[in-house]
């Protein structure tokens, strides 16, 4: 018997004929009805709580806000290919699909997001053109994400419902961090040590 057949047979033997009920009561909250302005404030608060820097602006001021946010960061900026021209700072270089490890040459990355979850301060990138491939938001030391108000939901269930589970997804909640030394949180390990969020709303 193959290992596969063996393991499956063991499972069937272990379960026997009587199977316990399999209904799942989902009595937890699946929506968050707070008005959008409140959700934006919660998102900002949660992001800042985990040491991300949030810049709020009007939708037509994204470009200048990104530029201002990146001010003082020495080195080149790489942008995901789908990032609109108006968002890009002067001199930014579009990701050209070079070997992933070569992305370490950049000081900062600019991407959009797919969805943002206010309650947990989470941004989700789905490797679509505006988010870029996964290595792009990983290797440069500064990550700038633009979030528009329509992308913000209140709760985790609402966030997951908007995602395609077949795409490579990265959920980001603050800069990389570790709690491995005395269970104290320290920001900045292998991922970007700085997370800047540009949150655009009317």
């Amino acid at each position, binding site marked *: 018997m*193959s*290992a596969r057949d*063996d*393991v*499956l047979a*063991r*499972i*069937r*033997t*272990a*379960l026997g004929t009587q*199977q*316990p009920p*399999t*209904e*799942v*009561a*989902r*009595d*937890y*909250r699946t929506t968050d009805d707070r008005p959008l302005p409140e959700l934006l404030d919660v998102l900002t608060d949660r992001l800042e709580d*985990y040491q991300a820097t949030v810049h709020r602006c009007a939708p037509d001021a994204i470009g200048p806000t990104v530029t201002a946010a990146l001010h003082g960061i020495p080195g080149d900026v790489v942008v995901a290919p789908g990032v609109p021209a108006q968002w890009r700072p002067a001199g930014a270089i579009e990701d050209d699909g070079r070997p*992933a*490890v070569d992305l370490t040459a950049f000081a900062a990355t600019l991407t959009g997001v797919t969805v943002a979850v206010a309650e*947990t301060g*989470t941004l989700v990138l789905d*490797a679509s053109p505006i988010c870029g*491939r*996964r*290595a792009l938001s*990983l290797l440069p030391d500064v990550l700038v994400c633009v979030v528009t108000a329509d992308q913000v939901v209140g709760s*985790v*269930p609402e966030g*997951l419902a908007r995602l395609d*589970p*077949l*795409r*490579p*997804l*990265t*959920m*980001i*909640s603050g*800069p*990389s*961090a*570790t*709690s*491995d*030394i*005395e*269970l*104290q*949180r*320290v920001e*900045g*390990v*292998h*991922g*970007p040590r700085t997370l800047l969020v540009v949150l655009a709303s009317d």
Partner: protein
Amino acid sequence: MTAVFLGIPTAPAGVGNLRGDRSFPDAARDALRDGQLRANLGHATTTIRGKRAGVVAEVPDWAELREAGRAIKAATMARLDEHLIALEEQVTARGGTVHWARDATEANQIVTALVQATGATEVVKVKSMATQEIGLNEALEAAGIEALETDLAELIVQLGEDKPSHILVPAIHKNRAEIREIFARTIPGVDPHLTDDPRKLAMAAREHLRERFLRARVAVSGANFAVAETGTLAVVESEGNGRMCLTLPQTLITVMGIEKLVPTWRDLEVFLQLLPRSSTGERMNPYTSLWAGITPGDGPQDFHLVLLDNGRTAVLADEVGREALHCIRCSACLNVCPVYERTGGHAYGSVYPGPIGAVLSPQLTGVEDNASLPYASSLCGACYDVCPVAIDIPSILVHLRAEHVEAQTRTTPEAAAFRALSKVMSHPRLWRLAQRAAGLGRFLARGRPTLPAALPPPASAWTRTRDLPTPPAKTFTQQWAEEHGS
């Protein structure tokens, strides 16, 4: 029904890290003398308990989430075979390859062969309990392949030639000064002025690993969840070392216990709320990576998923004990456990320490191979209270104690005593006589209010550190009957 009865094998001995070489009380005795260990554990568990309590209290529907988490896991186990087949189909359809391993030996062989096929002689690893359990690093090393742990705490353990003592923070038993010392001693070219500031230590790890991530061709990971209906795998982490391993190398090998499955994508909405708050005490962990098979132009182009049994089906055969398979390895039960807090994880002898280890390890190996673990608990219930999937650990502990007792073929002195006591306690007349006999203990006291400390075992285990009051001359029921008739 038990696995032994059904002929389902448990995890084999001689491979992996599920068995200690000493009983829990013996190992604990040494740990309890280690003042530094006690201080480190006390400090760390107190910190994390407070953080967890804070972020759990924030969630108004925690009880409902917890119940959903429990129910999803129960539902998963009830149809585990079907879900695994679905997962295999989905992963395969998206360009991955699925392997099945009956036990640790087989899993180690599969992974070793896969690495050898790439020609690589080193692999980078994301922290994974499953690969710790099967002793993969040792197996790879025997085949001439270096396995580099990239999680900070795992790195500390690996560099210090130590063993993990916690499922989330394997180096919880070390404080910053000890970690600084390990880094200064073992990392080539490390800054000689390295201080014990946790941030500086984290930076030293970043420097040390950066180059290795960039040149790695093969990564080995575990998985926190796998979604059967979509073939999506999830790794929940903080540092970004997971993302490095899951994104940069050409080949990714994921080793996953068969119980890590959830049926639907939607189920993750429950666990991604329960897990981070319970484990690191954060609303959400910094990074969660999700992937299904391979994606052209993004990440590894060669993906292997190894599904591991290693005793899990034996656990599944026990109607009471199978709940232990629901565990999402958050470590909340360790952090609140008064026993773990004092002995640390090494005393449990297995990679799974603390309350969950005390119920999981003996079931994976067969209870006789870890017979002291089910007794390593005062049954205080703190673990059950915090468990995000409501595993009734105290009840499983008690169940396993009974399994151990019932597995004995010879009558132990303890069993003889308990059987005699059962007879006495179920016959009021015998019980009254026995109580009177206990009252005779007062003569040992020679009029003093406590019994002498030097009593024969097992009483000495009590009186070594605690006084025992002299029994009264009359029991309550005796005196009551005298006063009230009856």
